[in-house]
């Protein structure tokens, strides 16, 4: 006989204001199976929890319904309390009186009636709850980090430092990411490569880290603690085991004029190349799309030159499976393509460049050796217009959101420019200056006061090019309330930060959510900012939202802490919401096997004592089942049921709404 206790929370006034909690309590006590009902100001408070625990013991409750906030908020809290009082935690249910009722309805009578209904439904469910035991699965203590930028490197180093193995997968030929492309970093103006390259080397040489560059994640199977990830090693055409990185090959390759992606197309590379001198691993790859040997079967110069015979034109992509227990996604960002803005030249004006191009111009190791020269004619620009919010905060042609890092790097660009070209004029168009960070506001102030950057509040309406190559920048100074026209030699657009191409596909592979712009969704915007809806998959860096370096590094370390926490136990407890098959009634039509997204439903032979197959039915693998219940719904005879959401429970819930 069920003995259900109902605990109704006022949540201060959050519920009590629109729901008559004593009336709900009075109604609850008359519901079938309910032996105890009480309302209280704050059920989640310590006295509130004590009240529940005491009632469980004293009233010998067999089930509990807490009518309070969303179960997403406090179900764990209350289930833990129930467990402390000796009640199986899965015998406790929550009715959502706050998010689903008091906060969304103003009419007290209607809200109270709905609250009573919601409680009745959960009482009906709780009466049919069965004690469930958490499922324990072994954890493979190796982490996969996807993306070898600063976030991925940091996460890998931290996990490795914690004594666990890491596989670091990077799409490009070298780790380092965008940070390796930066000249100096705000707000300290320290050299980006100087602080990054030691980390890159450390990651490559750490005994716990396996580096897989020029590789991409192909597919994923399994679940938290037990992922099997298939990684595609793209053909490098250079055997890294033989290559010493001497550089003879890429110094001799006859194809000299391939725009180098690393230099934002401002510098050139060969068909066999390392993207930049400090690359890790410092071993070249052949760009098959450009290589004459691979395209037309002619040349072969690099193979002839290589003293170690490391060149292999027959190299092919290979697939490697790795077993990991957790995943950190750190796939980063790229800049939005301003070609969508016809008013800024539609991407056709050579001297209208993006922030990365300027970084490469300002970088001592860049294509100009750190001299600011404009791309069209190599002339040193005497006036540069910097334009913030290019594509950001524009929901028509661009992106709705603020890209967060542009205010700071634009101030940095203006400073770097003025440090290099003392008589140059740096004009910054801005909508607002958002410099919320340690030392950030001071940095922007310095750009203004010490380095003479001219800040104009307003938007640029049009950039045109005169016949002599001068760029005419027309815009508005909204503080002065008048149009402005500036003749500039170079324009730097602070293009919006957007996710990397393919990020949505990767999210689907890992079962991670993403927003309308393609940024990965965290499990909770405030309380679980590095986790995702997919258990065991964590986020680091700008793949989640625009972030600067310190934020990316902080999140990377946070995700590493999450991974190490997960790996701290050899086994993992999982919610026991899994499907079960009634072997006696299963007709083995195999619809559930076809439907199961996890391959958890499998054929199962029922044997007699002699080992002879009597019948074949379906069985569900507890480790693989994630509890979606799709199998239960396709089973015509209801021979599959889902623990925690059984047919009997749903039937009872529906009858409670009669």
């Amino acid at each position, binding site marked *: 006989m069920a003995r259900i206790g109902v605990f109704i929370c006022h949540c201060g006034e959050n519920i009590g204001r629109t729901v008559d909690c004593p009336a709900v309590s009075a109604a609850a006590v008359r519901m079938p199976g309910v032996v105890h009902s009480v309302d209280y100001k704050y059920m989640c408070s310590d006295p509130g929890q004590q009240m529940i625990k005491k009632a469980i013991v004293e009233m010998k409750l067999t089930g509990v319904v807490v009518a309070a906030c969303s179960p997403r908020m406090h179900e764990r809290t209350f289930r833990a309390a129930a467990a402390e009082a000796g009640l199986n935690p899965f015998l406790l249910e929550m009715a959502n009186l706050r998010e689903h009722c008091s906060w969304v309805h103003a009419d007290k009578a209607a809200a109270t009636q709905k609250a009573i209904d919601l409680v009745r439904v959960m009482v009906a469910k709780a009466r049919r709850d069965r004690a469930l035991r958490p499922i324990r699965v072994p954890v493979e203590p190796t982490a996969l980090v996807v993306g070898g930028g600063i976030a991925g490197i940091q996460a890998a180093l931290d996990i490795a430092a914690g004594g666990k193995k890491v596989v670091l997968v990077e799409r490009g030929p070298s780790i380092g990411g965008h940070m390796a492309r930066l000249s100096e970093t705000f707000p300290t103006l320290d050299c980006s490569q100087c602080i990054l390259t030691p980390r890159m080397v450390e990651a490559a040489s750490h005994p716990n880290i396996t580096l897989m560059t020029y590789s991409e994640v192909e597919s994923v199977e399994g679940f938290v603690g037990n992922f099997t990830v298939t990684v595609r090693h793209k053909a490098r055409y250079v055997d890294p085991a033989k290559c010493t990185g001497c550089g003879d090959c890429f110094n001799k390759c006859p194809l000299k004029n391939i725009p180098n992606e690393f230099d934002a197309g401002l510098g050139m590379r060969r068909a066999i190349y390392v993207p930049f001198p400090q690359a890790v691993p410092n071993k070249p790859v052949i760009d098959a799309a450009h290589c004459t040997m691979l395209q037309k079967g002619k040349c072969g110069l690099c193979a002839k030159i290589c003293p170690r015979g490391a060149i292999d034109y027959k190299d092919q992509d290979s697939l490697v499976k790795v077993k990991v227990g957790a995943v950190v996604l750190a796939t980063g960002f790229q800049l939005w393509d301003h070609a969508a803005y*016809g008013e800024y030249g539609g991407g056709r004006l050579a001297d209208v460049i993006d922030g990365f191009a300027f970084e490469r111009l300002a970088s001592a190791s860049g294509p100009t050796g750190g001299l600011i020269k404009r791309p069209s004619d190599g002339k040193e620009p005497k006036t540069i217009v910097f334009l913030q919010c290019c594509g950001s905060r524009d929901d028509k042609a661009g992106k709705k959101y603020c890209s967060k890092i542009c205010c700071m790097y634009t101030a940095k660009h203006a400073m770097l420019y003025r440090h290099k070209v003392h008589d140059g004029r740096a004009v910054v168009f801005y909508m607002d200056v958002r410099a919320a960070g340690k030392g950030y506001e001071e940095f922007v102030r310095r750009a203004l006061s010490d380095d003479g950057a001219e800040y104009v509040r307003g938007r640029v309406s049009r950039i045109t090019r005169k016949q002599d190559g001068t760029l005419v920048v027309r815009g508005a100074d909204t503080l002065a309330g008048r149009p402005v026209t500036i003749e500039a030699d170079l324009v730097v657009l602070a293009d919006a930060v957007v996710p990397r191409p393919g990020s949505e596909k990767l999210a689907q592979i890992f079962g991670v959510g993403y927003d309308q712009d393609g940024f990965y969704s965290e499990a909770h915007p405030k309380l679980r900012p590095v986790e995702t809806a997919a258990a065991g998959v964590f986020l680091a860096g700008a793949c989640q939202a625009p972030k600067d370096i310190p934020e990316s590094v902080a999140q990377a370390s946070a995700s590493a802490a999450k991974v190490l926490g997960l790996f701290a136990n050899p086994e993992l407890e999982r919610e026991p919401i899994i499907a079960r098959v009634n072997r006696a009634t299963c007709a083995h039509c195999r619809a559930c096997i076809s439907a199961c997204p996890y391959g958890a439903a499998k054929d199962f032979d029922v044997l007699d004592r002699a080992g002879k197959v009597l019948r074949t039915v379906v069985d569900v693998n507890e480790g693989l089942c994630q509890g979606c219940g799709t199998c239960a719904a396709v089973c015509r005879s209801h021979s599959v049921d889902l623990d925690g959401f059984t047919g009997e429970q749903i039937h009872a819930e529906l009858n409670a709404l009669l």
Partner: protein
Amino acid sequence: MKTLGYYPGCSLSGGGIELDLSVRAIAKVAGVELREIEDWNCCGASAAHSLDHSLAVALPFRVLALAESQGLSEVLAPCAACFSRLKGTQVRLTRSPELGQRMQELVERPYNGTVRILNINEFVASLLAEGLAGKFTRKLGLKVVAYYGCLLSRGEDIVTSDDAEDPQGMAAAIRVAGCEVLPWNSSNECCGGGFSMSKTGSVLDLSQAILDEARAVGADLVVTGCPMCHSNLDMRQLELLKRRRVPGALPILYLSELLGLAAGLEPGALGLGRHFIESRQLVRGGA
């Protein structure tokens, strides 16, 4: 034979008659029939919308209702202002069902919103799709700047076939006509529009800037699709010449005229002789 509804509007029977002549001529070459909407009325440009919003919608509404009742599913409005008024009304109607109800009562005609309205660029594109290019016989070899102005590039949901900030809708046609399209900065700068009479000084300044830029990039002529732009660049150019503010005459042609020339038609038949700035010398033996 494809049939298009035709809305000439006032301009094409007055100051912009060259546009009417040349549009009809190239339609004929392409084998497209233009059927003039019977009993059409003024579209309301440029004054109605500054006087009375109901009137500004009611006038085009009646035109569209007539076209629909006459079985015309597509209507060409060569004048950019007419196009903007007709299509703008269509957009307003889709945004507000009540407006349609009100207009129906006012005009005493139903309109179900089925008419598709084409501007000159979209019309030319459809002629090219019908195989107009195959009928081009004359090699023009001219350097052209395409001038769109505002009404052929702007208006949310009105000019849907082109980019407001970087219009390209004429480029393909000009290239097919054997001409080079020069990149320039003034393709959708303002010509002064309706201030031609009231603020002639401003119009002269604006038109001059456009002509200067066209000359600077080395254009032989400016191609436009709008009678208002044409009048500001063509007629007002006389004044600029008189005041020696421009160094020489620069012909201004309608897109349809240029295509007519490419199709081998006589300049006079296309209306080239009616411009203020002589343009017949652009084709050999034309002048």
